[in-house]
């Protein structure tokens, strides 16, 4: 059984269809990228899975259990953690306290949550900055803190929304390494939306392509970037398909 099942999910905002009959599965321990042009509905789909929005119809199941329409905190309790495209650190709290808030989801006491939080910060390379206020971090470190905080909740599925936007190539490569280790060593399943194809190609085994709120292609990463329909929606219909190099940044 797939870890996450999204079945015929739809969502409109005041008549505007953001997501139209989207279905896909995520295999356990996989890394899947959700790509598509701006406005394709990637973040909306994330918000539906994470419980920020209720789907108008369709089903979302985690481990066979329906999570579609549950409030965000209960989706998190079910095992889904997320990061935000516009980072939302608890700015007035220290880096460690940020992680402790996440760790308290699965820990009984603040003391044990602190231990877990420190381990997670260590993992993300933030241990040396634990006592700094979160507001003092650089964008790259804020993104790491988002991952650390989400990871501290002990998720089985991690949703990463535009993690790499605004980062330098070296920072992207570092974060890619961290995420790959997480998937390999802790068996976490990751679904990420990303415009930075460098990161998508380095991380994702599977790609789901969203366009105008519909899935237009899905499959192995290497084959997706050669898919004519995908190249169409990114580059326009007149683009000479056979000359489009695979793996280049399509942003």
């Amino acid at each position, binding site marked *: 059984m797939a870890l996450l099942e999204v079945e015929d999910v739809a969502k409109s905002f005041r008549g505007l269809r953001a997501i139209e009959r989207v279905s896909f599965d995520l295999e356990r321990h996989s890394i899947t990228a959700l790509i598509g042009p701006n406005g394709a509905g990637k973040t909306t789909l994330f918000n539906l899975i994470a419980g920020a929005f209720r789907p108008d119809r369709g089903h979302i199941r985690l481990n066979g259990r329906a999570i579609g329409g549950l409030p965000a905190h209960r989706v*998190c309790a079910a095992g889904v953690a997320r990061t935000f495209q516009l980072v939302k650190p608890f700015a007035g*709290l220290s880096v460690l*306290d940020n992680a*402790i*808030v996440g760790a308290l989801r699965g820990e009984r006491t603040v003391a044990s949550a602190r231990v877990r939080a420190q381990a997670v910060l260590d993992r993300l390379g933030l241990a040396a900055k634990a006592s700094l206020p979160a507001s003092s971090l650089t964008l790259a470190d804020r993104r790491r803190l988002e991952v650390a905080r989400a990871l501290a909740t002990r998720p089985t599925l991690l949703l990463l929304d535009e993690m790499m936007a605004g980062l330098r190539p070296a920072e992207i490569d570092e974060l890619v390494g961290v995420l790959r280790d997480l998937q390999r060593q802790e068996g976490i399943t990751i679904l990420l939306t990303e415009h930075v194809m460098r990161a998508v190609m380095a991380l994702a085994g599977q790609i789901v392509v969203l366009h105008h709120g519909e899935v237009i292609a899905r499959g192995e990463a290497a084959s997706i970037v050669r898919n004519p329909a995908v190249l169409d929606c990114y580059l326009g219909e007149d683009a000479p398909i056979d000359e489009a190099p695979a793996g280049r940044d399509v942003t």
Partner: protein
Amino acid sequence: MSPEGSVEGSPVAAPAEATTSRTPADRRRLALMAAVGAVVLALPLFGGSYLVSVATLALYLAYVGQAWNLMMGFAGQLSLGHSLYVGLGAYAAAGLFSHFGVGPWAGVWLAVVLCGAVGAFIGWLAFRLKVSGVQLSLLTVAFAELARIGFDHLEWLGGPGGLFLRVGDRSHLDLLAFRGPPALYYYAMLGLCAAALGLCTLLLRRRAGYYWRAIREDEVAAQALGIDTLRWKLFAVVLSSTMTAVAGVFFAFYNNSLFPEQIFSFGRSIEIVLGPVIGGLGTLFGPVVGAVTLVVLGDGATEVLTRAGIDVPGVRQAIHGVVLLIVTIYLPNGLWPPLARVLGVRSGRL
């Protein structure tokens, strides 16, 4: 621990040492606490009745400020209608006493339950309708105004003419009826202040403190981390309103007269807010420092002017306004954080 806390303290003392032996910062903190504690405990012995009454007022404001700060400073939920809980608590206990002869020790329970229920109702209404920030504060103002007008028409509790409690022999100490000399009220308020400070210190170190601060900083992110924000916000509101209810009971038996126009007034709500804002929002000692500052400056100036034979109405409010202005412009984090740095103690800003 706060980022400030981790960098403060003596530069010579290594962190490992700090846990085993007393650092100079620890000694300073102890000495300061001992000195303040001694003065505060002995105040009724050397202070005259005026000083004791002013100090009682300061403690009262520090206590209600602490209760308000729990809701706004910790959990980020703005109430500008806390006079509602003072008034309801006061009328609940005073009504029981004047109509049924039930003393304050029993009346306080009715006050606490009533205010907890009203707080829960307002909170539930607001949070369910996703009301927050300025809208939430306007809703709290509206409920306080509703109570003011409602109690004006409640003849059973005196209506606009006021509710008066029998005053016994002031010099005779009767703990059961909460009657006695001014020192009784002073020590009662001191005990309440200490209890509130202890409770807040404890809560901030536990799950509630982390969750409240997370909600204050970013509610959507808090939800995504598994926090049932509605539940924890309600907890903050109910705790804050019940704490304030106890202050209301005190107020009734200290003042012995209640008027809806006064006790539920918007001005009273603002008075509750001023202390923590001036002292330092979200800090443990901010409400105390703010209340003392306001009372010393406001009542001190009034007293000086009265003795000089000058009667200026509203001078207290004017001074409160000036203090608020200065603090907002020059010390936006309040008086306590910089004061704590000067004293070499932790600010407790969390």
